[in-house]
């Protein structure tokens, strides 16, 4: 009789689908890190997010028309990259589009790159903090030694995006890396890339990024100015006066 033994196969774990989100923000962390990840992993352009409010700007690259908010994919890793800052008016539509895309493509979690202003940060010992909308992602923070963002305040369009994500069924995580809020900060973006690389267990070669740091600071001045004007804008005041004045 055949004495071949069969080992009981364990269920092969599915590779989770992740959506990385890069939008212009503090230190341009989101833009710089997600752009480089897309480039380094050679992610494929698979679509765009269309929104009537975003249609006032189009780019032309190699003779092709591109919208300002584009979707990329490689395997089970997706990325959405915006070339324009997302202001208060665009934030709800943008976030709903992200959620809709995530549901249609069975995205397991959304990871957003952002920055937190720390003027006297130590460039050789930068820190990234995590904020999650669902408890299921806390384990990911813990396993990757990412300290939890314990207390503070988030303002601006970022707060709008987070409040919508908090109420959606897709777990979301925001990675806040210490940065210079007001100038493009490639050092901090590089730290964010290292963090995600470790978390997702994917190798991202950083030599090219390191060689381009000064160039990135110089080349993104205009985007940084535009981003700051969006982040620092005040939300339009409500027309109904507060109760005490009635």
């Amino acid at each position, binding site marked *: 009789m055949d004495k071949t033994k069969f080992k009981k196969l364990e269920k092969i774990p599915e590779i989770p689908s992740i959506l990385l989100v890069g939008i212009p923000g503090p230190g341009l962390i989101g833009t710089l890190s997600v752009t480089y990840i897309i480039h380094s992993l050679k992610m494929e352009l698979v679509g765009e997010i269309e929104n009537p409010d975003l249609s006032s700007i189009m780019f032309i690259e190699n003779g092709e028309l591109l919208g300002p908010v584009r979707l990329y994919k490689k395997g089970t890793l997706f990325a959405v990259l915006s070339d324009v800052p997302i202001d208060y008016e665009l934030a709800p539509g943008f976030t709903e589009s992200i959620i809709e895309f995530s549901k249609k493509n069975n995205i397991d979690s959304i990871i957003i790159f952002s920055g937190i202003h720390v003027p006297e940060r130590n460039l050789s010992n930068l820190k990234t903090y995590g904020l999650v909308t669902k408890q299921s992602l806390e384990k990911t923070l813990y396993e990757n030694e990412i300290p939890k963002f314990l207390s503070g305040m988030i303002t601006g369009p970022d707060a709008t995006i987070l409040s919508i994500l908090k109420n959606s069924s897709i777990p979301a995580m925001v990675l806040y890396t210490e940065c210079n809020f007001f100038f493009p900060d490639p050092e901090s973006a590089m730290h964010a890339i290292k963090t995600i690389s470790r978390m997702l267990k994917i190798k991202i070669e950083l030599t090219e990024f390191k*060689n381009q*740091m000064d160039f990135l*600071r110089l080349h*993104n001045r205009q985007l*940084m100015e535009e981003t700051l004007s969006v982040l620092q804008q005040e939300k339009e005041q409500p027309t109904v006066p507060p109760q005490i004045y009635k």
Partner: protein
Amino acid sequence: MTNDFRSMFERQINALGKEIDDFLNKELMPLSRLEEKDAGWILEIDLPFVNKKNISVILTSHHLIIKAKLEKTYCVSKFNCVTEFDYFKKTFPLPPAMDIKRISSKFKNGILRISLPKISTGKKLRID
């Protein structure tokens, strides 16, 4: 690979309407930030590709003029025209009631930080 990565940022040069007009005087406009604190103002200027020894800070009666030479020429291609830049330059109006004698500056991690203290002496007022 480097050119592909750079080209992903090329769109920013032509986008967004409001432009940093480097082309007006063929000098780069650095990003800057002036913040008022209790004791004075802090002016920060972002100067990538610059060595400390190539920065000049000139104080006039009403302005602060920053000029810095880049360590390598920066080329911008716009509308099929390539422009080369070798310098940053920016002029700042001086804040009011500043103590000129105590101005100091520091260059660290590519950022020039100028401290502009406020005048701390004055006439004491009597409170009735």
